[in-house]
């Protein structure tokens, strides 16, 4: 009697060396097992041909405040006919949001404004924080101190350094290289340092000036860009608001005209009814 467990284990290469050797010895003498093994290998090859259709995954786990969830979810869930469980505390949400449900012109505009602001903030690398000096808004990327070790160098603090574009970064890297080369040279050649103290100081001052110019230039550019974008957003909002107000005015005017017209018709009808009544009652009085 052949051991089918061994056959399966051999098929999936799950036998240790002695057991494998023993089963191979068995195979040599058992045509039925050989044939069965070959057939099962064929089945396995066929199984590999069966692949599921490409799924369209669009969910991620998000956290929602309970109150908002209680307010919004039941109707939305009903509308989407989604499983009830998916609307409990942690919600699986399509990563592609059903934006049509909430997209109104005003909401769209607000969202666009936020996006533009965010994009502008991203471009300008704005940093807003509340400190002992009150609220501070600073443009430019905060650079780790480890990367820019110039804290004691002419008062340039690492956090004030802007690296906003590749060219700036390159310029900054080049300046850094020059600074470190100068520092090394000045450390290693103490004699020379005293001799060329005045020259070195002037080089440092030049470098510092370049750095400050770069910073100023970059900040100025970012501020201008940011201001332009803000102005654009404000203009768009104003335009849209004016258009909406106009639409509302036109709508109210139409409703008003329609109501007036309807009231006139009612008055006319009432007069007609009253006249009819008085006409029909007068002969009896006679």
């Amino acid at each position, binding site marked *: 009697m052949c051991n089918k467990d061994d056959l399966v284990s051999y098929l999936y290469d799950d036998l240790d060396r002695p057991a494998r050797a023993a089963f191979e010895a068995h195979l040599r003498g058992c045509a039925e097992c050989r044939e069965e093994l070959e057939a099962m290998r064929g089945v*396995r090859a066929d199984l590999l041909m*069966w692949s599921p*259709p490409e799924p369209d995954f669009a969910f991620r786990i998000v956290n929602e405040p309970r109150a908002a969830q209680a307010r919004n979810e039941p109707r939305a869930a009903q509308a989407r006919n989604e499983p009830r469980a998916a609307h409990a505390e942690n919600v699986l949400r399509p990563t592609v949001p059903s934006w049509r449900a909430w997209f109104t012109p005003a909401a769209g505009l607000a969202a666009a404004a936020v996006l533009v602001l965010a994009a502008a903030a991203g471009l300008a690398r704005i940093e807003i924080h509340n400190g002992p000096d009150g609220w501070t808004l600073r443009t430019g990327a905060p650079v780790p101190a480890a990367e820019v070790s110039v804290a004691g160098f002419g008062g340039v603090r690492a956090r004030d350094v802007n690296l906003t574009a590749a060219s700036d970064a390159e310029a900054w890297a080049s300046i850094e290289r020059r600074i470190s080369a100068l520092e090394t040279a000045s450390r290693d050649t103490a004699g020379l340092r005293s001799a060329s103290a005045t020259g070195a100081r002037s080089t440092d001052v030049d470098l510092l000036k370049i750095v400050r110019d770069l910073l100023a230039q970059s900040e100025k550019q970012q501020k201008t860009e940011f201001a332009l974008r803000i102005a654009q957003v404000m203009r768009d909002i104003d335009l849209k608001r004016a258009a909406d107000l106009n639409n509302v005015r036109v709508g109210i005017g139409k409703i008003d005209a329609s109501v007036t017209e309807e009231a006139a018709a009612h008055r006319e009808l009432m007069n007609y009814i009253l006249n009819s009544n008085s006409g029909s009652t007068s002969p009896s009085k006679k």
Partner: protein
Amino acid sequence: MDSFNQLVMRWERPIYALAYRTIGREEDARDVCQETFLRAFRALKGFKGQAKFSSWLYRIALNLCRDWIRRERRQPVAQAPEGVDLVEMASEATPTETIEDLVARQEISQAVARAMALLPEDQRTAIILKEYHGLTFQEIADMLDCPLSTVKTRLYQGLSVLRRQLDRNGGYKHV
């Protein structure tokens, strides 16, 4: 949450594939997949790492598939499988694969899906976990709460049935 979503992204395809091959319906497989991650997320605190995360997910998904089969009260994938579109397959074809190869591959794929649908649930599950998810016999035994030898028996029986079915369907020809 972000790290959990990374886990979702890592495991959504295998879990979906498991669900699809078990119940055979694309939409329902997606629902099962989604529900699996939701349950996993809720139960994450209770997961002490006594098993592999993937095994834990597979177990949740399989339980949900079983619930689905019981709820629907029908043999899974008994209907003609949705299969894979030929054009879709063509986009994944190797450069040396001819259109005849593609057609043959699609036929075999459909024949396999039909044959798998006829298997008893325990045999089908064992084959899916072994063939498509590469679990060891021991992992399958742990997941299905059965002895190791039972897993091998189920595999043997399942493969034998598949062999007969594929021979009978005529879809059993190697490319």
